[in-house]
């Protein structure tokens, strides 16, 4: 019986996918990286609320996170394979590393209307079960992408990326210093089902979710900018096309020429945002890469001025409730001794 239901669901999805794939134009140069992946298909899914349904017998669940340099890892079991997922709210959904899920691609290409780009392929598939601690999902929609470069750079096995739509239905408490992600169920009104007695937020800030990415406003040089909140970004990124005034308080501390692929005219800049604030809270010394993000904005379907990543999240404890469109922050004092 179960098998039958599964087959039925898949068939429905296949029909949906295949009908859909005729109506969308597929970008030949789909991005290699899933965080930047925002296929039109996904956008469409979101509008009909096709998000994975989390299960598990808990009201609140603390999941230990591991650091790999400035990446955050969460242990998961995906259809029997155990390994690390990068906690990456800059990815819209679950992304699997092609190396370990190559066999799934055949399924996706034949049945689910896989999307194949010229340089980087991103395929869609469905995985049977994803288990993270006591949290599990069944029949999860996922992308498959080549993540070998992350593995090779970090020397750590990466099964995939844990994107935002997997956990956005929970209140998310992100605590880098203690290395934990705490997920708490929300009631129908979007209230946390476990009181946060111990937390006194220094700041409660508006946050919104659009197309499975999180956006907040923050100020640089007195200008209000639209930042994507991205736990998978090892560094903050500021769009070089942000309003000119922004750069009044950004000092460039490094520059690198990139001489790849026959061009001598490209560079990457590292700067310090000397006047960065969120709400009424100033945060000093925020380092950032400065680069052109217009392509990323196209991919996300939203104009973004930058991304806030590891440098931002290490400033405190963040409690995000997307149903309430609120983010509470406890800024860390001086680093406390253990």
């Amino acid at each position, binding site marked *: 019986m179960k098998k039958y239901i599964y087959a039925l669901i898949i068939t429905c999805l296949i029909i949906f996918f295949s009908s859909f794939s005729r109506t969308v134009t597929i970008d030949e140069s789909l*991005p290699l990286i899933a965080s930047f992946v925002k296929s039109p298909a996904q956008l469409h899914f979101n509008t009909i609320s096709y998000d994975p349904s989390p299960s598990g017998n808990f009201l609140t669940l603390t999941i230990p996170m591991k650091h790999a340099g400035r990446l955050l890892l969460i242990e998961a079991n995906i259809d029997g394979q155990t390994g690390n997922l990068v906690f990456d709210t800059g990815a819209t959904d679950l992304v699997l590393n092609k190396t370990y899920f*190559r066999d799934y691609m055949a399924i996706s290409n034949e049945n689910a209307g896989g999307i194949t780009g010229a340089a980087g392929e991103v395929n869609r598939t469905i995985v049977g079960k994803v288990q993270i601690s006591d949290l599990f999902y069944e029949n999860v929609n996922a992308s498959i992408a080549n993540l070998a470069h992350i593995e090779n750079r970090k020397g750590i096995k990466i099964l995939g990326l844990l994107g935002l739509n997997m956990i956005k239905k929970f209140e998310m408490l992100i605590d880098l210093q203690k290395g934990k992600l705490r997920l708490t169920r929300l009631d129908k009104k979007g209230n946390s089902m476990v009181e946060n007695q111990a937390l006194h937020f220094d700041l409660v800030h508006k946050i919104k979710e659009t197309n499975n990415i999180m956006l907040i406003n923050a100020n640089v040089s007195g200008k209000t900018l639209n930042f994507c909140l991205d736990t998978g970004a090892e560094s903050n990124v500021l769009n070089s096309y942000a309003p000119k005034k922004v750069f009044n308080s950004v000092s460039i501390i490094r520059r690198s020429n990139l001489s790849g692929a026959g061009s001598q005219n490209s560079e990457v800049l590292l700067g310090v945002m000397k006047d960065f604030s969120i709400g009424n809270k100033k945060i000093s010394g925020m380092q950032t890469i400065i680069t052109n993000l217009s392509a990323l904005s196209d991919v996300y379907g939203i104009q973004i001025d930058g991304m806030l990543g590891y440098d931002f999240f290490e400033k405190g404890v963040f409690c995000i409730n997307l149903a309430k469109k609120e983010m509470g922050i406890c800024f860390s004092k001086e680093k406390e001794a253990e």
Partner: protein
Amino acid sequence: MFFLLFAGFYAKAQHLPDNICHVNNGKLVFTINLNWTDEQIHELSQTYELDSTVISSTFKELPSFTVNGIVWTTKIIKNNIIELSKELSPPFPPSVPANQIMKFDIPVLDENWIKKVASTTTDNTVYGINNLTNAKYFSYINDTATFFLYGYTYAREMFISGSFNNWSTRQSAMALTDSGWRISLTMKPGKYAYKFIADGNWLRDPNNKLKENDTYGGNNSIVFCYNYTFRLKGYTQAGKVILTGSFNNWNTKELKMQRNAEGWELPIFLKEGTHAYKFIVDKEWITDPDNKIIHSDGKGNVNSFIGIGDTLVFRLQGYQNALRVALTGSFNGWNPNELFMEKINNEWVLPYVMAAGNHEYKFCVDGKWITDPDNPVTIGKGDMMNSVIAFKPNYTFKLNHYADAREVIVTGSFNGWRTDGYRMKFINGIWEIPVFLAPGKYIYKFIVDGKWITDPDNQYWEGNEYNTGNSVLWIEP
């Protein structure tokens, strides 16, 4: 794709003033003082990758110049202060679609530039002694390590995560006892870092005083699994006995031996290799009376010696008329005048204590260097060909179905993709080679009579820059 370019960056600016570079109106602008010292100019050039032509043209106060197709302009702001500027360049070459810029590659700049954390990848710990508040919290007997965490009985679940289980947060569940949590794990001698996880929350071992910075603002607990016990019989009247040796730089206070029924002892972790040592009995330095291996250090001191690790016996048959045969290899810096072999019956023999690993070696027979005639595994060509032995190998590369091949080589990230070895052996219809691989990820290929192929029996592979694949192998700790 690009991150290799960023290796080897210098540390952050030391001599330059702040605010010398900013972005303004789509331009990258430098504010340069013409009176800067050579040191400062050098740093300017390094920090911002400005080549010598750009620097010299600026200091010649040329109003505009073009270097490698980039147009630079200068403007004198006031006395000796010059503004150098150029249009901002696209961040990546135009040949790469901008939306393929990899987020995960950009921060590599950051890591190399900022270098916030010390690297912990190389651990050269030579010896170690545990420091727990009570021996009941950790024991290591017969390759089994047992951890006990007192209390926390209210927790729903408890895991131990450490370097022994690849820091898995779910693999090693501890069992609840009436007073705490316990787990026994099979472990090899060595040094290990770990933490407990109580209902998802990381917890340093409260009963272990030995800790190390985890480089993320906390500490890991450290434990050693011992592989040797120093013993000194008698001397029961002595007030104290200290163990000192080459491993702790002959420290005269650190390693206090413990009394036992027969005399003194000290269990310890010692890294594989050969160590010199002595006992200090109430300030008197003595060699180990139960160890016959003593050598002079050439300065009038005599020390006891101990080899930790397993012994590999090197053998060379024949060469009965040779006067002198020496073993030489990567393990002794290819010194041909050190490890002389002994002629026993019809062969030359030398037992040698070695660490696990892949070792290259040759024999030096009366000054002539030869590979091991009984070992078909070699690397290199012609005079540069060496024999290779995997001592205590932990993995065997195997290739089926190529019985007709003349030569099969396995190459990969473990040997820098050398195309001249390791040559595999053809045994019972299968090409194979045992190797030692440290824990981590390896990518590899076979070269069958010059043709590169992925491992047909390994389902895991990843794409490479040549638009083909490399086989992927993980060695777990």
